[in-house]
């Protein structure tokens, strides 16, 4: 009569049970790459399809957010909602780059040395960053003039506009929220890349 037990006599019974695979070693380089660009960590580990989908989702949210809220959606310093940047920063150089551009190219430096958004009637001196008053000519065209340090000639700009329009209300809320969600989702992807085993060759998913 055959032995009904699938476990050979004398063997350790626990050895016959399926053994859980040991956790994969952490992949700090994959996490760093995922922070550098959405999806890059998964691409590094061999998950090309996942990487493309992660990048598409994060970039969709980031670009739509920036489109809705304008540059004001990413503001590490001024808009009274700076703490949103702690969520947004997980999109990596995208968020830091947009914030850097915002602070250095689209804000004015007033007479006290404070960096702030320009008022609707202020033009940004492209050399010094100082605010210059916008005037309107007889045809209704806005113009401004600015002086280059070390020169006596004034340069007239026509038409002249503020460096950006301030965002408010829903546009501000939703733009900021979209980019914060993009950042938090990329943080999920960073953590996943950190603890994910490399894809088996030929089985990249």
């Amino acid at each position: 009569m055959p032995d009904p037990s699938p476990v050979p006599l004398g063997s350790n019974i626990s050895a016959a049970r399926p053994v859980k695979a040991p956790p994969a070693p952490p992949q700090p380089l994959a996490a760093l790459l995922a922070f550098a660009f959405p999806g890059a960590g998964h691409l590094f580990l061999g998950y090309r399809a996942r990487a493309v989908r992660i990048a598409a989702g994060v970039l969709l949210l980031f670009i739509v957010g920036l489109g809705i809220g304008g540059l004001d959606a990413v503001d590490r310093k001024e808009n009274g909602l700076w703490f949103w940047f702690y969520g947004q920063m997980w999109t990596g150089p995208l968020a830091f780059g947009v914030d850097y551009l915002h602070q250095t190219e689209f804000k004015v430096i007033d007479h006290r040395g404070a960096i702030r958004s320009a008022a609707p009637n202020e033009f940004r001196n492209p050399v010094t960053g100082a605010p210059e008053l916008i005037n309107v000519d007889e045809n209704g065209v806005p113009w401004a003039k600015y002086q280059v340090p070390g020169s006596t000639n004034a340069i007239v700009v026509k038409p002249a506009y503020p460096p950006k329009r301030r965002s408010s209300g829903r546009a501000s809320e939703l733009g900021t929220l979209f980019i914060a969600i993009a950042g938090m989702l990329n943080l999920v992807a960073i953590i996943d890349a950190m603890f994910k085993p490399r894809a088996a060759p030929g089985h990249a998913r």
Partner: protein
Amino acid sequence: MPYRPFIDPLTIHDSWYWLLIPMALGIALVYKAVRLQTLEKYWRQVAIMTTQIVIGMILLGAASYLVVVAYVRFIAERIAGG
């Protein structure tokens, strides 16, 4: 002043709620790419999750509306009457 994309904000004060759809889609795209064991049913799962988020938010909005117009009014009337 001309509109400059990605610098100036959009004027969306009347249609902002439509943005719930790309937001839900973006969340589902990333979440399902990370969470699913295999990607065979990826797009189906993304569509389901997007729909779930949109319906869930509509229900939450409706519930909040009911709280404000019905329950808060009821409480306010009780306080005023009592």
